[in-house]
């Protein structure tokens, strides 16, 4: 058994190659993580931030298969040889809250970690009640997990892990699916957690981390590029602001759009006007109906009340097909657009030459193996196929780092200059401010100008 007496973690010449050599991540030399440190891991998409967390959690190679060289030591003991050593001592929160929920009731989900420690049921129940009261989630205890919103699910997952009192807490983009208010609530719970514990964050949205982080490790696939203290972190790199341009003719007008789900009315009279070469931003809380509105505008939800007027008078029978041929909808997750196993097939019918050039040497590659930024640009090209006059983008900055956001803004600029009207739905306020001429908030079922 390899033993090294040193820090909490020692990453020593660690190298991990994903199956079939798709991607290799290397950390040359010795990298130490001390007890009580609060570390922010940054770096471009695909630089191995999440992989590092999985390695520190003892999930490599047991859950995440691949070729491992070098080692990671936990308090001097090799994790690769003894993944059990971190069991119960470290907790990991992942991006997607739905995939982390294991039980059918909230109470059982909260109990899961403590049950694994073989604690007496009575004590667990008392503990759940105490934590629920402390964090104001008593109303959720009797609910089933499949009825929770994304924010509530993430909160439950986080509390379930915190209740086991892990010495090390790792968070892999825990706010990616959340609106700013839910994200703030999650961060508040973390702030209230014991200050002596070690925290490791992967997060693109740095707004919530100020005052929480003590160290920043910037990574690329060859290891740590820079290791700096909190004082040296650049919290806000300004995104390039798009210049205002002259709007073209009207492309679409929404008049008193209303839509109801069986349980509630979600849109209560939405009015909006979209012109050529115009970029409009829409923000709002999780579940406020932003995505539903985009689906109505792109012709995917035909049952609504109100009017959609287009540039030309389209006969009623052909309206939906015409709408779908003139408008493209970009989904939150770029992978949702991929229907084939080769980039070349995905690009068939592409109208954007600069995108074609970017993927010239990747045509035979699977779209699923591209970097996050490339996936986003490819999905935008797919969405634009057929020279769409209108583009509706649902959370386009999801999972994108600063550099990719900059590239996305430049892509939007090019599309706008071709006359495309763009509507962006996003929680990323900075991105909206940089890219949009007009921002609305969807509040109580109506669009309110900011």
């Amino acid at each position, binding site marked *: 058994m390899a033993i090294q007496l040193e820090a909490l973690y020692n990453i020593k010449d660690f190298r991990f190659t994903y199956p079939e050599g798709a991607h290799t991540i290397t950390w040359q030399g010795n990298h130490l993580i001390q007890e009580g440190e609060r570390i922010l891991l940054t770096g471009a998409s695909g630089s191995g931030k999440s992989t590092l967390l999985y390695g520190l959690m003892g*999930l490599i190679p047991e859950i995440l298969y691949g070729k491992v060289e070098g080692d990671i030591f936990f308090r001097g003991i090799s994790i690769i040889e003894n993944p059990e050593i971190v069991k119960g001592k470290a907790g990991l929160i992942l991006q*997607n809250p739905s995939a982390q929920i294991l039980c059918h009731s909230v109470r059982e989900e909260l109990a899961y970690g403590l*049950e694994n420690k073989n604690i007496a049921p009575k004590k667990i129940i008392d503990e759940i009640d105490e934590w629920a009261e402390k964090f104001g989630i008593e109303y959720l205890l009797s609910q089933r997990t499949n009825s929770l919103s994304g924010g509530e699910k993430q909160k439950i997952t986080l509390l379930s892990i915190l209740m*086991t009192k892990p010495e090390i807490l790792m968070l892999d983009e825990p706010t990616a699916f959340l609106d700013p208010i839910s994200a703030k609530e999650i961060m508040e719970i973390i702030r209230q957690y014991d200050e002596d514990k070690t925290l490791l964050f992967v997060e693109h949205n740095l707004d919530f981390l100020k005052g929480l982080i003590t160290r920043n490790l910037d990574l690329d696939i060859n290891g740590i590029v820079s290791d700096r203290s909190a004082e040296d972190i650049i919290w806000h790199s300004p995104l390039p602001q798009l210049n205002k341009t002259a709007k073209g003719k009207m492309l679409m007008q929404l008049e008193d759009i209303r839509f109801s789900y069986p349980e509630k009315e979600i849109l209560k009279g939405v009015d909006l006007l979209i012109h050529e070469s115009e970029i409009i931003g829409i923000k709002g809380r999780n579940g406020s109906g932003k995505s539903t509105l985009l689906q109505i505008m792109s012709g995917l939800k035909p049952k609504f009340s109100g009017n959609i007027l287009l540039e030309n008078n389209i006969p009623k029978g052909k309206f939906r097909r015409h709408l779908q041929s003139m408008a493209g*909808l970009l989904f939150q997750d770029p992978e*949702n657009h991929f*229907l084939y196993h080769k980039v070349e097939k995905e690009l068939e019918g592409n109208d954007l030459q600069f995108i074609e050039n970017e993927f010239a040497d990747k045509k035979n590659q699977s779209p*699923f193996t591209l970097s996050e930024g490339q996936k986003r640009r490819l999905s935008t090209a797919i969405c634009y196929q057929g020279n769409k006059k209108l583009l509706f983008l649902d959370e386009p900055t999801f999972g994108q780092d600063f550099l990719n956001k900059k590239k996305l803004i430049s892509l939007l600029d090019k599309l706008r200059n071709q006359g495309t009207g763009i509507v962006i739905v996003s929680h990323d306020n900075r991105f909206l401010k940089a890219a949009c001429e007009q921002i609305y908030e969807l509040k109580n079922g109506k669009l309110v100008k900011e």
Partner: protein
Amino acid sequence: MQGHEKGINDLVLFGLTFIYTIAVLISPTWQICIYWVVLSQLQLILLGRLRWKLVLIFFLLLLIPGISLFITSYLHLKEGFDSYSIIIWGRVFDHYRLTQSLYLAIRATALSVISFSYLIAIHYERLIYSLIQNLHFPVIWGYALLVAFNSAGNIQSELKRIQHAAMMRFSRKPLFYFYIIPLLVSATRYSQQAAMSIQSRGLSQDKSFIQSEKLRFYDLLYLFINLTGIIIPLIYLV
């Protein structure tokens, strides 16, 4: 203990599914077959596990295939060596063919009703906890099954998203093979994240449960009463 209302242990109901299925398969007459179906359905309704309307609707839906089965088997069956004719509503029928066809149709319908009703009545998450707590079912398999049950909602939303993506691209609903690659990728991601969630929260075979699913005296008594209800008519017939 908190959580759901305490009722009959789901492991007992799971066992009864097989017991009633075997009973119907070996039933000597169609009358006993009907008696067992009624017995099984009545108790599920009285236990509050099934709504009688649902059973009725399912039964009515089964009437058409049941009658079709009866007619086709009557037409294809050969007369038995002790056959005799009977007259019903002025028409002559062969008694042997009639009873055998009826027996076949009722047995097939009974099997469908029993499997459907228990499928609806059993709480699968409770069954898994019961298997772990009573039969030492490995927890890693148990939680993997729970994740699989949870994933149904995820698959549904994935299907919808793929459908929307294809509709935006081709202005029509996609053909089935368009779903394959995105669904496979999504399922792999989902299962990997779930596995990480299970492992990173320290899953252990020696674990406690806030909700006890241990078999109690009442569960065993309930099982015994059911077995008695199944066996008594058999003894009476013998």
